[in-house]
């Protein structure tokens, strides 16, 4: 057997500023042409491991390394950052931030320019690599004119110009809509077959990565490698859920139905899964025994938008005759691709932008248009995606009190209101902490608290769980569900299909500035036409239903959701 490309032996790493090692006792080999998925919850050390692979550790982040880490037989610390980059190419998570060039072509050329590659070779290689990722028609485009998926392709081309042996992807799905994510996984698969490079994908969305086969899954937890197994075996080992990784939905459904999953059933993908007739019958029985729950009694219309149109100053019409009704007490998901109009819609509702025609009514009164941004915010609060974009105070108490102080509420009234809100949001133990000491998820709660304290009846959240692992995702969403139970109406703008499936009462689907569907989540995610137009992805539950010979897949999905809400997460 030939020498491994990468080899960790009893490897450990401790950041300079940390008390404990972030990585301990890592033993891992990556061979030529292998495809490996590294999974684990936030804080398990998988990003640190990625930094060790691409050389940012020890060359950009300092700390203490123990053991050995060899790249093609040479210790990485002797190779230097630029030496490692000849072997390992990294696609970072933030596809916008890593886009350095002013145009796609310049971004692809970046590494070659730094290598002093002269013309005409420079232009030829850029052209050829762009063709490899199918972006040769977009070479003169600026990043603002490219979608998230296209930017990722450019980033990929930008490292592939150098013919590296290892392609490292740090959370490649984090910023993509479901359809673009699926395409990305497909592309990675094709490129690996074409170039023979080893591929390492770091991602906690297991099911989405397994859409194309991988050789091994490395499961990490608390800085250690917990398992290093072929996917079929790992999925049957029952290690995932307890380590903060979501099992594929079809396997969860099989578990509910009492089907025992074994590696020889090829459970790594819904397309390879084989079920015996008895197992299929078990699933059908489960469906029969778990009828759909009666839908929640719809509340009164709270916020009604009718025939809303909006165009930006450059003439681009972002909303074309949009009508949406938000009902009291519901959790509503607004879904669709980037640019479909879902964010613009929330901006129009909050008064950040002024609609060109149509009406918005709040509790049946039509004076919404005459209210200022601040007055609207007393009724409809808006929480931005990234908490760092909202937090400006050093202390949690002050951050939450900010809106009340700006409204001139007397200080003796502010204190009890802020304290109550902190209790509701589970932030009471941290009340005197500085904001900077909080985790991302806790910061998110602070921003939600800072809106809740103004007692709005509706809160709109932009991608409330973006970039969160399963555990934090569940934390945030359960918290929102609690808020929903206390009577607050919640609107979530998202392209996370799990979120929509598990938590939303209804979903409004935007596409090209129009609402193309308003339905239950189960209805939306089992309709191939809507899925295609809104760049969503069919849920694997749908495929499982088909596999088991269930005609009414929509009802199967609905029963699954109801069962989860009633039994698994009451």
């Amino acid at each position, binding site marked *: 057997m030939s020498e491994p490309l990468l080899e960790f032996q009893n490897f450990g790493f401790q950041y300079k500023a940390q008390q404990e090692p972030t990585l301990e006792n890592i033993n891992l080999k990556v061979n030529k042409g292998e495809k490996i998925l590294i999974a684990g919850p936030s804080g398990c050390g998988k990003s640190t491991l990625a930094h060790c692979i691409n050389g940012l550790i020890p060359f950009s982040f300092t700390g203490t390394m123990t053991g050995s880490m060899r790249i093609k037989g040479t210790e990485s610390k002797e190779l230097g*950052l630029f030496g490692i980059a000849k072997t390992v190419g990294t696609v970072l998570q933030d596809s916008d931030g890593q886009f*350095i060039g002013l145009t796609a072509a*310049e971004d692809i050329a970046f590494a070659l320019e*730094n*290598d002093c590659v*002269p013309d005409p070779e420079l232009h030829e290689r850029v052209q050829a690599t762009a063709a490899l990722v199918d972006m040769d028609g977009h070479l003169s485009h600026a990043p*603002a004119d490219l979608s998230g998926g296209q930017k990722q392709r450019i980033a990929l081309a930008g*490292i592939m110009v150098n013919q590296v042996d290892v392609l490292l992807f740090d959370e490649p799905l984090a910023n993509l809509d479901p359809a673009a994510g699926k395409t990305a996984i497909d592309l990675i698969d094709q490129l690996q077959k074409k170039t023979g490079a080893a591929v390492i994908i770091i991602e906690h969305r297991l099911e989405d990565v397994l859409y194309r086969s991988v050789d091994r899954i490395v499961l990490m937890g608390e800085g250690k490698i917990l398992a290093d197994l072929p996917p079929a075996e790992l999925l049957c080992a029952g290690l995932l859920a307890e380590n903060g990784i979501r099992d594929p939905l079809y396997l969860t459904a099989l578990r509910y139905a009492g089907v025992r999953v074994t590696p020889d059933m090829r459970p790594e993908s819904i397309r390879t899964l084989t079920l015996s007739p008895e197992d299929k019958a078990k699933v059908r029985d489960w469906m029969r025994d778990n009828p759909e729950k009666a839908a929640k009694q719809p509340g009164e219309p709270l916020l009604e938008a009718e025939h809303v149109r909006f165009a930006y100053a450059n003439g681009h019409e972002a909303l074309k005759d949009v009508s949406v009704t938000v009902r009291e007490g519901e959790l509503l998901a607004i879904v669709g691709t980037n640019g479909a109009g879902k964010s613009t819609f929330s901006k129009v509702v909050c008064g950040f932008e002024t609609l060109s025609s149509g009406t918005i009514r709040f509790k049946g009164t039509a004076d919404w248009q005459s209210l200022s*941004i601040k007055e609207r915010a007393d009724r409809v609060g808006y929480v931005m995606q990234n908490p760092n974009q909202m937090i400006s105070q050093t202390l949690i108490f002050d951050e939450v009190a900010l809106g009340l102080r*700006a409204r001139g509420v007397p200080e003796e009234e502010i204190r009890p209101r802020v304290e109550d809100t902190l209790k509701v949001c589970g932030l009471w133990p941290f009340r005197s902490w500085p904001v900077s000491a909080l985790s991302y998820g806790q910061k998110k709660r602070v921003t939600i608290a800072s809106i809740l304290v103004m007692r709005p009846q509706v809160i709109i959240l932009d991608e409330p769980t973006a970039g969160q692992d399963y555990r934090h995702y569940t934390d945030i969403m359960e918290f929102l569900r609690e808020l929903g139970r206390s009577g607050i109406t919640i609107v979530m703008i998202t392209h996370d299909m799990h979120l929509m499936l598990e938590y939303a009462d209804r979903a409004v689907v935007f596409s090209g500035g129009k609402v193309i569907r308003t339905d239950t989540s189960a209805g939306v995610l089992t309709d191939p036409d809507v899925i295609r137009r809104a760049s969503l992805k069919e849920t694997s539950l749908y495929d499982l239903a088909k596999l088991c010979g269930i005609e009414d897949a929509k009802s199967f999905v609905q029963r699954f959701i109801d069962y989860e809400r009633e039994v698994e997460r009451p």
Partner: protein
Amino acid sequence: MRNVFNYIDRKSPIHELTGAAKLVCLLLWSFAAMATYDTRFLLVLPVISLALFFASGIRLRDVSFVLGFTVVFMVLNNVLVFVFAPQHGVSLYGTKHVLFSLGGYFVVTAEQLFYHLNLVLKYLSTIPIVLLFVCTTNPSEFAASLNRIGVKYTVAYAVSLALRYIPDIQREYHEISQAQQARGIEMSKKQTLVKRLKSAAAILIPLIMSSMDRIEVISNAMELRGFGKNKKRTWYMGRPFKAADIAAMAFGAALAVTALVLNRVNGGRFWNPFLAG
């Protein structure tokens, strides 16, 4: 405006010139226009720049905003010079031809008016050519051009990065300020200064924090792709000099030399018609 550089993509001989050649010309031209107050020379420069503008296919209305702004600034500059030094022309040219008096201290002389004419001509000689450069140079080529004329590539690339990320930061500022307005943070002039400073902090602190995150991503991305590895780098958008580029730079150099020669002949930076007459 999507870019700080208001590049207008048209087909013209001026666009065809490489960015580096245009940058050299701009520097030489500006030097020439700054160096001398020879009115004859300063009359020629605006005529040439108008001709170049015509050749570039850039229309007046493309640059009307900046042009209007410049005119206001030029008028202001002239008024201030007159208010603070109404006899500056007299001291420069050494003669005094009084035309009329505006009362007291303010006496209008032919010398002063002539000096103002020169000031106006300086504006007309420099501003159009700067605009022309900005409108006809692809921002992508700018960093390559700076590097070509001897600026270190790490510094030159910083300019390119600024062009790349400034629109993103502008958009982010806009979004943050909207969300903070909804929380009741106002920047209106009705507020007291202290309140306005606090409001500014509520927008700027989140902007700075998220920009710091961004900087880390960018610098990692650049290092991972070998930025700073070698002393030199090549440029995708860099182009070799052609005959037209050499000719343009030679013309720029000729202008600069002419300016210096005129200063020599005139025995100073000023051409003085009053002594002759």
